[in-house]
Structures are given as C-alpha cells and as structure tokens.
C-alpha cells in the first residue's frame, strides 16, 4: 500500500524533471535510448580512401504572423553533417518578410585555424528572407548550428565561424550524439568543426576511416570520459586528443570485475565464518 502511495509523487517528480530538462536543454537525444548506426562522413573534397558526395540542403519556410516558425534544416546524411535549428520566433525577421530561405552547402575550405585544423567540410549556412536580406538571431533565442566531426567518437571539438579570413571559435558543446557539436549562433556564414592538432596534410589521416564511422553507433561516448560536454572559447591545446584512450575502457571493466569478485568472496567468507554452526531462520 505504501508503495502505491509513493507511486504518484514519484511519477509527478519524473514528469517535472522530464519537462524541465526538455525545455532547458538546447539539444537532446531523440528520446531516451536507441540503436542508431551512423553513416560514413561524406566529403566535398575527399582525402584518399574516403567517400565523397557531400550535399547540402535548402528550405523555404513561410513566416507566420511576422515571426519565424520552427526552423530545422539538415543535410541528408545520418546523422546529418550540418544542421541549423531555430525555435519558433528565434530569428529576427524583417517587417514584411514572407519567406525564410535556408541554405546549407558544403564549400571548399579556406581561412586559417590558429589552434588546430578544419575537420571535414566547411558548410556555408545562409538564412535570408525572399529579398536576400540576411537574418540574424539574438543570442537568447538559442538558434543553433550543429556540425558533425569526421570521427563519431570525437569528444572535443570547436565549431568556428569564418570571419575576415580566420576561424573564430564559438562556444561549443557536444550535441550528445555521434561526434556532433552544437553552437548557438547570432549570425550565419561559413562554419566548420575545428579539432586540435595538425591537419590531414601533415597527419596520416583525419580521424577514423569511413568504414570505421559506418560501423560505430551513436557515440557521444566521449562526453562521459571527457568529464562533460561543454567546451569554451579557450584556445585548443595542441596535441589534445578525443578523450581517454580506447583501451582504457576494457581495462576499467576488468578492474571493476576483479573488485566485484573480491567483494563477493570477502562477503561469502565473512558469512560462513559468522554463521558456521549457527543456522538461522529464513525470513
């Protein structure tokens, strides 16, 4: 009876948490779990052995009552390599505008990243009205750009916007899925994922191969090991890696199993010592 009485407050608390979390988080996984494979990263200008064929996405979105509706446009890959997401009313729409035109296109890379290199494609994101007037968004609207790194297991990266020929880092956090990162933006332009270390011209590869990526399931994995998903505008330390080494996970699992075994054996011995010759009643 007491348990059933507890059910209602627990359900209510759960409901409150869910609603609060969904409203507060700029990005959340689709629901609560799932098994979602990731397709290989497609390049505009593929390095040797990597697949090409990166494409963009466009959308014409009608303005409603002078305000922007929900804007959610994504490139067609799974998961999308570039996305823009704006909540209703998030974009500043010029008076009289009837349509919001969104275009996401991969473009040849340019510009210099001072700390790290561009990982994957540069995406040009244009958001205009029907007259070509560029739209902006207040920071409070949390209009977001989401870009996917080439490595689905990558934990840390920074989304940067090309400004006056150089990549300006934006406050970036993990989107929680497959090496994708999210930044709140106030204006649009060219965006790219910047990762630490030398670029592909000096490194052997720029992350895992396409086949690796294809076989890996959703893996924000990394945020777990990196101690959190929030990144900052702080300079990217050269030589930083995408989280702890992979081999650490099985080692930790083995250690945990050994500890569990030791705890179990210890408990069993104590139990035998304590109750040897002193049978007790079953509860």
């Amino acid at each position: 009876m007491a348990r059933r009485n507890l059910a209602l407050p627990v359900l209510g608390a759960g409901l409150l948490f869910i609603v609060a979390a969904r409203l507060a988080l700029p990005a959340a996984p689709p629901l609560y779990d799932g098994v979602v494979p990731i397709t290989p990263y497609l390049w505009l200008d593929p390095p040797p052995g990597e697949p090409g064929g990166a494409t963009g996405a466009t959308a014409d979105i009608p303005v409603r009552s002078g305000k922007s509706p929900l804007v959610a446009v994504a490139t067609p890959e799974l998961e999308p390599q570039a996305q823009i997401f704006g909540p209703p009313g998030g974009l500043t729409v010029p008076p009289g505008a009837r349509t919001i035109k969104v275009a996401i296109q991969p473009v040849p890379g340019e510009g210099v990243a001072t700390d790290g290199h561009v990982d994957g494609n540069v995406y040009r994101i244009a958001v205009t009205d029907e007259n070509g007037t560029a739209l902006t968004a207040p920071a409070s609207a949390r209009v977001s750009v989401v870009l996917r790194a080439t490595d689905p297991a990558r934990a840390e990266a920074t989304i940067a916007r090309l400004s006056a020929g150089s990549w300006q880092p934006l406050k970036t956090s993990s989107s929680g899925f497959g090496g994708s990162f999210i930044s709140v933006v106030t204006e649009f332009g060219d965006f790219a994922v910047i990762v630490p270390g030398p670029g592909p011209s000096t490194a052997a590869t720029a992350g895992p191969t396409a086949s690796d990526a294809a076989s890996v399931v959703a893996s924000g994995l990394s945020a777990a090991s990196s101690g959190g998903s929030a990144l900052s505008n702080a300079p990217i330390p050269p030589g930083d890696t995408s989280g702890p080494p992979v081999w650490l996970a099985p080692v930790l699992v083995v250690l945990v199993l050994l500890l569990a075994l030791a705890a179990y054996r210890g408990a069993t011995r104590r139990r035998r010592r304590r109750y040897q010759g002193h049978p007790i009643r079953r509860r």
Partner: protein
Amino acid sequence: MTAIALRPPGRVVRPAMIITGLAAVVGLRWAATVAGVAGGVAVGLVFGFGLVVVGLATGWRPLLGRRSSIAVGVVGGTVLVVLALVTRSGQLPWLAPPAAFIPWVAVTIFVASAEELVLRGALFDELDRSVGTLAAVLVTSVLFALMHVPLYGWHVVPLDLGVGLWLAGLRLATGGIVAPAIAHAVADLATWWL
C-alpha cells in the same frame, strides 16, 4: 517458516554486485562502440544479453505485476512520447535510423526490456529489501541516467533522471516490470518516427 537457510550476503552486497555487473556491461558496450567492432544492432543485442545475465544471475525472477500493467505501460510510454512532441522546440531534428526496421525494432524492445529487468526488476527489489523503497527509486533512477552518459553525454542526465523516476513510478504503481518495460520500449520505438 522454520526452514533453515544461510543468511543472504550483507544488505548491500547483492545490490552492489548488480550495479557492478551493470557497469561492466555498459563499459563493454562503450568499448565495443568506440572500437567499432560491430554494427549498432549487433552491439545492442549483445548489450541486452549482458543485461539479462546480470539481472538473472542473482537468482531474481521477474515479477509481472498487475493485469493492468500492459495498459499502464502503454499509457506511460505514450506520455513520454507526447512530452517529447510537446517540447520539441528544444530538440534537434532527428531522422529515422537507417537500420533495417524489423531487426531494429526487435533489438530496441529487447534492450529496453533488459534494462528494465535489471534496474526496475532485480536491482529495485534488492534495494527495496535492503535500504527501502525510496532509496530503490532514487538509486535506480540515478543509475538509469548514468548508464546513458557514455552514449549521449552528461547533458542528458537531467532528462534521463526524470525518465528513470517516471519508470520507477510505473513500477511502484503496478508492482512489476511489465509496465516500465512497455513504456520504455514505446518511447524508444518512437524514435523511428520522431
């Protein structure tokens, strides 16, 4: 009543064993995913089997609960889906996973049920007996949130904590794992369309 038996190991040893096993299975899934040893469906299948082993290894057997559990589970899952739809403005646009539908459905249901078997089943009952119902609710909900961190990142902890509480509430209301398992599966399956 008067049967003679060994006293079970300490109050928290058995729950600790389950939590350890759960951590090991989650860790293995993480390692398999990072290493890219197999596709998502295969990894999910192995993950589910691991959870079932952890849940049943302690000798725990499922409590099915009341007859109304199925209906309560469907309603509980629908509430989660509706909440996701209603609060969609704060969510990224997601597309249907490209895996073949039938295997994906099967594994998703299996994994959701296996998670419930361990958390709202074996572990919940052990904690309920040893440290009380409220502690069982809180610990299983926190673990539910934490076990999703490797897959989605830390920022989903508040959301999954809420979902954990919701599922625990269904467990309390029906007395078995059928309702939370169905609700969990319904919510996960909705990702194909949402």
